[in-house]
């Protein structure tokens, strides 16, 4: 029954070819460090799922942000778990992304023909940091308020453009409702859209080019 339905769909979608390209592709014999990318993807999905759930209650305005987060954590069934997964997942995400990058550097996996995979990966690292930076403000407590005050001030030390960058990030001279709203917008719309596009490209290239072998010491020339 299930096989027949699978056949019916395959005839119209060709999904088996896609499935085989993704999951049944040939890979060289590698080690556990090669799972860091998949681990990152898993945590990214965790962030998306828990993040979507958080938006059901979270309200990004100064008069509601803190209270709505407290409501999620203390009143909603499982709210502590959803928020906890998102909170800790954010840190795990940064750690995994950096480890994944180190593995690619150390094994030289960024070399021809995988340069574009590497470049999208570099931008993805920036996107992940952007997620961390914008998400940190959203609980709107003392820590997030002052961290963002400092963070935007750091961006403000760029020569010539600094003041301008700071004002654009804050949406004015000071941290305000405008800042919170634009950080929220960046966190749930701009960055996810960018991430989706880049992860799509990144994974397509991983599958298209195949993954690199562990570099071997070349036999010494006679």
């Amino acid at each position: 029954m299930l096989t027949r339905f699978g056949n019916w769909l395959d005839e119209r979608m060709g999904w088996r070819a896609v499935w085989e390209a993704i999951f049944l592709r040939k890979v060289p014999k590698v080690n556990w460090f090669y799972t860091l990318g998949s681990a990152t993807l898993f945590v990214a999905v965790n962030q998306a799922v828990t993040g979507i759930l958080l938006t059901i209650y979270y309200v990004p305005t100064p008069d509601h942000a803190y209270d709505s987060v407290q409501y999620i954590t203390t009143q909603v069934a499982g709210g502590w778990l959803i928020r906890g997964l998102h909170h800790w997942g954010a840190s795990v995400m940064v750690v995994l992304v950096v480890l994944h990058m180190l593995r690619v550097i150390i094994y030289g996996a960024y070399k021809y023909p995988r340069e574009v995979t590497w470049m999208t990966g570099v931008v993805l690292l920036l996107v992940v940091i952007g997620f961390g930076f914008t998400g940190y403000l959203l609980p709107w407590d003392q820590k997030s308020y002052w961290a963002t005050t400092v963070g935007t001030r750091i961006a403000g030390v760029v020569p010539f453009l600094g003041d301008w960058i700071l004002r654009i990030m804050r949406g004015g001279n000071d941290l305000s409702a405008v800042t919170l709203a634009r950080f929220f917008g960046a966190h749930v719309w701009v960055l996810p859209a960018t991430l989706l596009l880049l992860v799509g490209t990144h994974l397509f290239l991983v599958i298209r080019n195949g993954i690199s072998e562990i570099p071997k010491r070349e036999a010494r020339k006679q």
Partner: protein
Amino acid sequence: MEHSEKKEISRREFMKYTIAALGGLIGLGYGIPAIGYVVAPALAKSQAQQWIQLGAVSKVELGTPTLFKVNISRQTGWIVNQEELSVYVLTENGRDFVAMSNVCTHLGCRIRWIADQGQYYCPCHNGVYDKQGNVVSGPPPRPLDKYQTKVENDQLFILEG
């Protein structure tokens, strides 16, 4: 007959089932808390009932519904709202009181007493109730909701919640 024969399972099959089982567990691990998280506020019990003071018994006119308005605070999510509660109180003898909600039982619009006609009227879909709150015409499915009442020190109270 053949049940003693050992069923061989290939490495590939074993991995397939293990991955499917792990995936299922992870799915449940997220899915069950997520459902609870989404439906929780809908299942929360409404707040405890409380007696609300409407005002002096002497304010209720004999034989005519009298409108009382009181402010109550109600917690929704993380917000405490001040809401105005409007109640029509009717007494025929000055001792027994009927307190009726001004919420139309059809779709929740606010009804009002039309003194000329001696009826309550709902502007949304022309629902009409008589003085006692019984449906006269229009779409309302049942009479107006009534509150339990009590009188203490010549003050009228209703039980809300």
